[in-house]
């Protein structure tokens, strides 16, 4: 049976709460209200107020509390109502959660769920893709699933991981993306990319909502004899360089697509890694398709112009294929 991306996340949370009583949740409006996106609807009734905790608007405080609980052996899951608000908890995440293991040798099994991304006409404070802010920080794992199957499997893996994991769940995909999810205890390992479409002309390295746009672009280009290979990173940190390089060795051409602005984005790091590790197999410059370096506009027309999509990916991929 096909389920939505949102339902896949709900199932993972439910099953992990059910499986392991150390798992508990904190966040704004996750209890009585059932969460801003209704992901945690019914959790309070089932698991009780001690494991489904409504917090004040105080990201720094409740991430700090979760870190403390994690150090004491609990398995906290923090919901950022919107990933944009994660900046308020930046110090706790970057200076506390990420460093404890290195400083005191204690694991911090914390998951921060970060509903991110645009395409939902929500303006500059509710649409950002902040993954690159954390990509630079040693000690954090970052995952960003693109399908219900990966959403469920990676969330379970994140909850069971002994390290702090930021789980980037794309808001556009919540109800737009449906797919089959394997029955039973389905876990997708952190650190493994997946080739979502085999191709021979250009390797498109991407993640999150851009995977779907890239797959659409691939269909557009197929009649022109341009055969895109779409590599879904799934995990941003630690990055699966082996899969990326294997793909680029096959095609000789690499393109990175992400929704976050281009400058300082993850695409730059991937391009640098390819230049360092796979220079000899490159037949063309590495190309990035990303958003412009501005805040995300509120106007739907402007937002559409701002975000990468299948058409924009196809145009760049066509140029790269012909290079």
């Amino acid at each position: 049976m096909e389920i939505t991306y949102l339902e896949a996340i709900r199932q993972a949370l439910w099953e992990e709460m059910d499986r392991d009583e150390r798992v508990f949740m904190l966040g704004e409006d996750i209890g009585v209200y059932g969460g801003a996106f209704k992901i945690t609807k019914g959790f309070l009734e089932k698991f009780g107020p001690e494991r489904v905790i409504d917090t004040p608007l105080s990201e720094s405080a409740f991430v700090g509390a979760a870190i403390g609980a994690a150090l004491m052996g609990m398995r906290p899951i923090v919901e950022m109502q919107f990933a944009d608000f994660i900046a308020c908890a930046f110090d706790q995440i970057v200076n506390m959660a990420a460093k404890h293991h290195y400083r005191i040798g204690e694991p911090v099994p914390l998951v921060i769920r970060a509903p991110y991304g645009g395409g939902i006409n929500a303006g500059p404070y509710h649409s950002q893709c902040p993954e690159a802010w954390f990509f630079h920080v040693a000690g954090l794992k970052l995952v960003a699933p693109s399908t219900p199957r990966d959403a469920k499997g990676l969330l379970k893996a994140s909850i069971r991981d002994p390290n702090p994991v930021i789980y980037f769940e794309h808001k556009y995909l919540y109800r737009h993306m449906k797919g089959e999810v394997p029955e039973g205890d389905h876990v997708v390992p952190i650190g493994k990319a997946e080739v979502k479409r085999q191709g021979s002309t250009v390797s498109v390295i991407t993640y999150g909502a851009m995977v779907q746009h890239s797959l659409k672009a691939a269909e557009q280009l197929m009649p022109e004899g341009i055969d895109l290979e779409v590599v879904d990173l799934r995990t941003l940190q630690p990055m699966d360089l082996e899969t990326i390089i294997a793909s680029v060795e096959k095609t000789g051409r690499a393109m990175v697509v992400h929704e976050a602005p281009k400058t300082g984005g993850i695409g730059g790091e991937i391009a640098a890694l390819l230049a360092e590790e796979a220079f000899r197999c490159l037949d063309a410059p590495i190309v990035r398709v990303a958003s412009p370096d501005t805040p995300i506009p509120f106007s739907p027309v402007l937002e559409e112009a701002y975000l990468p999509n299948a058409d924009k990916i196809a145009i760049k991929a066509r140029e790269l294929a012909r290079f």
Partner: protein
Amino acid sequence: MDTMTKIVMPQMGESVAEGTVVAWLKKVGEVVAKDEPLVAITTDKVDFEIPSLAAGVLSEILVQEGQVAPVGAVLAYIEETAPTGAVPPESPKAEEAATVAHATPAEIPPAPRPETWYSPAVLELAKEHGVDLEQVRGTGTEGRVTRKDLLDFIARRSKAAAPAPQRGAEPFAAAAQDQILPVSHLRKAIAENMLRSKQTAPHVTQIHEVDMTAIARYREANKDAFSRQTGINLTFLSFVVQAAVDALRGHPLLNASYTDEGIVLKRALNIGIAVALEDGLIVPVLREADKKGFLTLAKESADLAARAREKRLSPEDVQRGTFTVNNLGAFGALMGTPIIVQPQVGILGFGRVVKRPVVINDTIGIRSMAYLCLSYDHRLIDGAYAGAFLNHVQANLEGFDFSTIQ
């Protein structure tokens, strides 16, 4: 204080993958001045000497004479001596070394920049499969050779590669008094290139007669002044080169390559000039001959020929010719049937200029005559095209515009 300096096999042109050590000019333990010639190397493109990169003592030889080493391989180590060390800077060798200006390390070209650039993937693949990239037609941006172009080329080539026909060579049996000479690298390279060309291109040679009287008279009258002013000889060959360059502009198929990918019309007009050596033959190249005047071409030809005889050509000097001119007359030949330099499609031989009785307007006169002998690749060029080209060269020579010699 002392440090070890590596002497490595340099990259002598993009298609050269290895070189052979012909002779070590120094023995292990011998003192070497900086820039002093250290080892003689040969490749199938060019012979050269590698100078020492440092002053010191040749401490170890890793590649012995006669051995082949890939580009980048360490050939030897020089143990550097500190400036205050045992070797005085005023070593007598240093002076000698200073004359070997051509061989300073800075001038050994790294991979020469091709006219169209190649991506890392293409270079890697070409090296792996031993492909001369100039043979591959590019379909990428500005005619760039893409990885796919190269893969297609390799696939076609391996399909086309039939087993080489067994040549019915007589079984070798040297009689007691026969002498067996070793085959030099240059000889071997010439042998392979000539055989390959004959097997690749169906050669046809077409011969026109040209009246060189006007040029001969001009030359006779001006040669002393010319050599006084320029330091070089005024040769018939310079006139022929000039005439051929002009005619090639109007006959682009002769400045081309016939490849599996299609007919490659070369944008550059680089004229190879065959130069006889004591032990063989080499064809240095006049680059962009169509953009140069008579004097420049004459000077460059003289320079290339001189450097060829002194074995001072760089790999660049012998690469990327697009057409060749061959002075058959230099050794007395009236005519000949030259072999094309692959992957070119034409070579123009020029015989000795001799005075002969010639019928003009039903009278007999004494004229300076010579033969123009064009060998061409009949896969691409037909007799009519070749004839038109030769007519053009002939007309250029017979009506030579001497005002162009400035």
